[in-house]
């Protein structure tokens, strides 16, 4: 990791013991076993960067004023901090600060964008389009709108996870008000062709909303170049504070939307509520750091990811990558290990904190809908593991992870009747399985 992040990871006593769960603070010669458990679930959440925490702290106890208190220095200094944060958030996506609405997180931003736009426009245009692989808060908001009379088209994706532009274009009608397509997918890391989608939307007079929670700070985003009208941003996905996010809302041409939360009229009436100064500051700082470090970090993570991928696939056969290899977040690796079930595998690599697309790990016992949408067959969906690498991941951790995974998969394949059948040349698909 870069020098600054390393310093931040090592130097801060305030954070107490264990720091960020990585091995860098040890630094002793000859250590090849990193500090466990190793965090490899960066798409689920990220540790707040110590530099972000440091920037936030004064606004809890010293500069604690309400940024909307117009009449005294406590308010003014809070307002100044909030507005600076707004600029920092705007900068990383190429927007104007006046186009940034602070929210409690990307879920709220997605709700606001989708419900807000559709409710405002549905008298004239009541159709929206989205993808089946969107995050649940997008899909569920859309479903809720269907109960309000909005028509929603849920488009499938190709096997690599990308939307088919021809299919998208064909789905647009004169009644389409909004297209919502996420920038980067949380499960498989796939990056959609944003500029192409934006251009299509612009020519058809349709608003383009993108849930960029996983993309901000990881890949370059430019709302102008990409013709994006609304963008959801998440704090805790980019080493910022939890419980904080933002929604970019284009001013030129103006995007009109109905607020979800009413009250004092903050955020230009789009989202009432006292702004949480320290959280705003934290989000701003996280964006500023990301903007500066993104190119180098992306390169570093991609190299680590490829190391992990090659390290595993070199020693294990029948391992499949889920989602496009190229158009992919640098830190995401989603693999299916044939003949080995995901939750069972996770128990075997308990020093690694990862997640799985297996049904057994979800409360509903249903396998990942994203993997199913890619056309991944059910039994392979049950075998998938998502590795999420991030700012504080080290090469040591990757090498350790490779060993753990190879050992666990090999052991579980010895236990697996399906692996046995495959070795004997039996075609598993030809067997009539009894339901139980």
């Amino acid at each position, binding site marked *: 990791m870069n020098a600054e992040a390393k310093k931040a990871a090592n130097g801060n006593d305030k954070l107490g013991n264990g720091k960020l769960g990585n091995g860098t603070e040890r630094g002793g010669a000859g250590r090849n076993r990193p500090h466990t458990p190793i965090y490899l679930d960066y798409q689920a959440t990220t540790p707040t960067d110590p530099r972000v925490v440091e920037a936030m702290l004064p606004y809890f106890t010293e500069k604690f004023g309400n940024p909307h208190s117009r009449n005294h220095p406590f308010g003014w200094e809070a307002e100044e901090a909030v507005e600076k944060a707004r600029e920092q958030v705007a900068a990383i996506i190429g927007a104007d600060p006046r186009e940034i609405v602070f929210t409690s997180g990307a879920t709220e931003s997605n709700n606001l964008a989708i419900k807000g736009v559709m409710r405002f426009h549905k008298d004239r245009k009541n159709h929206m389009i989205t993808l089946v692989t969107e995050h649940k808060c997008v899909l569920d908001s859309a479903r809720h709108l269907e109960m309000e009379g909005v028509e929603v088209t849920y488009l499938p994706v190709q096997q690599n996870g990308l939307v088919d532009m021809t299919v998208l274009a064909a789905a647009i009608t004169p009644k389409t008000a909004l297209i919502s397509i996420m920038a980067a997918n949380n499960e498989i890391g796939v990056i959609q062709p944003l500029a192409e989608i934006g251009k299509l939307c612009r020519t058809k007079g349709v608003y383009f909303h993108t849930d960029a929670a996983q993309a901000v700070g990881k890949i370059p985003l430019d709302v102008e170049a990409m013709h994006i009208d609304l963008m959801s941003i998440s704090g805790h996905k980019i080493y910022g504070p939890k419980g904080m996010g933002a929604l970019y809302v284009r001013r030129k041409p103006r995007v009109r939307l109905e607020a979800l939360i009413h009250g004092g009229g903050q955020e230009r009436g789009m989202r009432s509520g006292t702004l949480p100064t320290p959280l705003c500051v934290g989000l701003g700082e996280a964006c500023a750091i990301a903007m500066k470090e993104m190119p180098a970090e992306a390169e570093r993570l991609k190299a680590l990811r490829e190391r992990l991928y090659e390290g595993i696939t070199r020693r294990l056969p029948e391992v499949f990558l889920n989602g496009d290899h190229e158009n992919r977040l640098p830190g995401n690796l989603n693999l299916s290990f044939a*003949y*080995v*079930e*995901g*939750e*069972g595998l996770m*128990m*075997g690599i308990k020093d690694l904190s990862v997640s799985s697309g*297996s*049904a*057994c*790990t979800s*409360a509903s*016992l249903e*396998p990942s809908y994203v993997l199913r949408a890619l056309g991944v*067959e*059910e*039994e392979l969906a*049950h075998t998938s593991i998502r590795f999420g690498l991030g700012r504080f991941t080290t090469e040591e951790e990757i090498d350790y992870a490779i060993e753990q995974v190879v050992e666990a998969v090999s052991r579980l394949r*010895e*236990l*697996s*009747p*399906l*692996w*046995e059948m495959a070795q004997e040349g039996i075609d*598993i698909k030809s067997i009539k*399985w*009894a*339901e*139980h």
Partner: protein
Amino acid sequence: MSYSEKLLDHYDNPRNVGALDKNDPTVGTGLVGAPACGDVMKLQIKVGADGRIADAKFKTFGCGSAIASSSLATEWIKGKRLDEAESIKNTEIAQHLSLPPVKIHCSVLAEDAIKAAIRDYREKHKPAEAAE
């Protein structure tokens, strides 16, 4: 998911992993579950001349609960007569391993696997009673 110590023990040190020769007349093979469901268990028994299960082996594709349930099943049925093994209930397996409610179905599958193995063995030894 936080599992009981017994469950973890079966997962880390599974008993009786392996295969018996399914063409051996003293062997019964049960194959239950489905890959699409994320759960497949193969349980085999070798029945001795005394009618008791002399050996048992299993292989499982499934989560920790599934592996533990089938491992436990092979442990319990060894030395038992067929009718004794058949009467093992999934609830006993679930209780022994302290399976969380969402994992109870793994113990059901293990019970099914035992019965399937016994059924297969009995099918192989029907000739004397087979209807002509």
